[in-house]
């Protein structure tokens, strides 16, 4: 997957969602950002953050993620894969 593409997603995520420096330091592209309803550790971002994420993706890539798909955007890699599936690669 295009590393530059993922970098854009990662940096936008950090700035739009107010992720603090400590959290950012331990964050990888596989870190789960939202509570996905299972036991996996996550950054604890919430519903308003998810709406912010959808808005961010629209502003960056012009793609409107349906509310029902938000749960698929659970990490940087997951976001990149989701966008790839919808024809957005850069």
């Amino acid at each position, binding site marked *: 997957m295009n590393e530059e593409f993922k970098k854009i997603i990662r940096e936008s995520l950090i700035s739009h969602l107010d992720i603090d420096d400590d959290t950012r330091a331990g964050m990888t592209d596989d870190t789960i950002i939202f509570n996905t309803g299972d036991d996996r550790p996550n950054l604890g971002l*919430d519903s308003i953050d*998810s709406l*912010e994420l959808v808005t961010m993706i629209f502003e960056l890539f012009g793609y409107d993620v*349906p509310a029902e798909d938000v749960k698929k955007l659970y990490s940087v890699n997951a976001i990149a894969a989701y966008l790839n599936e919808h024809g957005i690669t850069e």
Partner: protein
Amino acid sequence: MITVKQDDIGLYRDLFSGYRTLYTDRCADRTARAGRALYAFLDGEPAGYLLISDEHGGDFISYVFTVPDKRGMGVMQTLIRYAADTAEKMIGTAFSDAREFAPALMHVMEKLGFEQGGSRYMFRCDGDDLWERWDAYMNKTGKRLCDTLRRQGYSTVLLSEASEELLEQYRQTPTSEYKNPLNHQHLIMPGAEVTKDVSVLCVRNGVLSAYVFAYMPERRSAIFKTLSSSAALHGSGVILLPIAESLARVRERGCKQFVFSMDGIGDHANSFRDKVLSVLISKTSKRISYVYYPKRETNV
């Protein structure tokens, strides 16, 4: 010896300087004018009072207060028993911010035949800069997020203008209070009518997605309750749109203060409170309301 006297409401503030309630003085006055006030005296000394409102289709204990150094002497129990015994139709009661004496209060209510219907968290929003704070949030973040929701096809409909088809969808929701008008989990004021032209349904493709019901007991204050989205949309933030619309409506009416009444504080509700409502909520306002209902229809 405890004696109870029913008297003009204007007396209570002079008699009991410890008076404090979730509502403003003006709101308390209005509640009191709509009903009656009972005063308790312990050996001739003012010991407590209780306000009863009858504006919800029956007697509703809206406030009870015992002077701190008179607590533990049966004052509260005497007042509540008197209220219940003299009520034409007792429909319920709720106590807010009962941290100091909640255990005693609960004990008294249960002893007198009431049962606890649940608890709610209530957050008071007020202050001279209330709407400026909200505008600042909306300008910085809220409008962008609402635009996203609108772009995705969500729109709002006032409850007063909702089609029968939409209302029927609402009636079918698990939290519908139309289905059970005395469903204590979702009522702060049993029997009270929602204010339909400030209550908002959120819809997409004709399907009910979220809703916010508000009460305006008077022009300058409102109570927001039943903030909910459909299960499939939990975590999507869609509730922001009807909230923003409902706030705009109460603001148009001149509202200067309001309360968010939320039950079952879960992850999503916490999130919404922390990320959105926090700009409105007064720092000292977190209160828990315990709602009680009589176990049977008749007086206890």
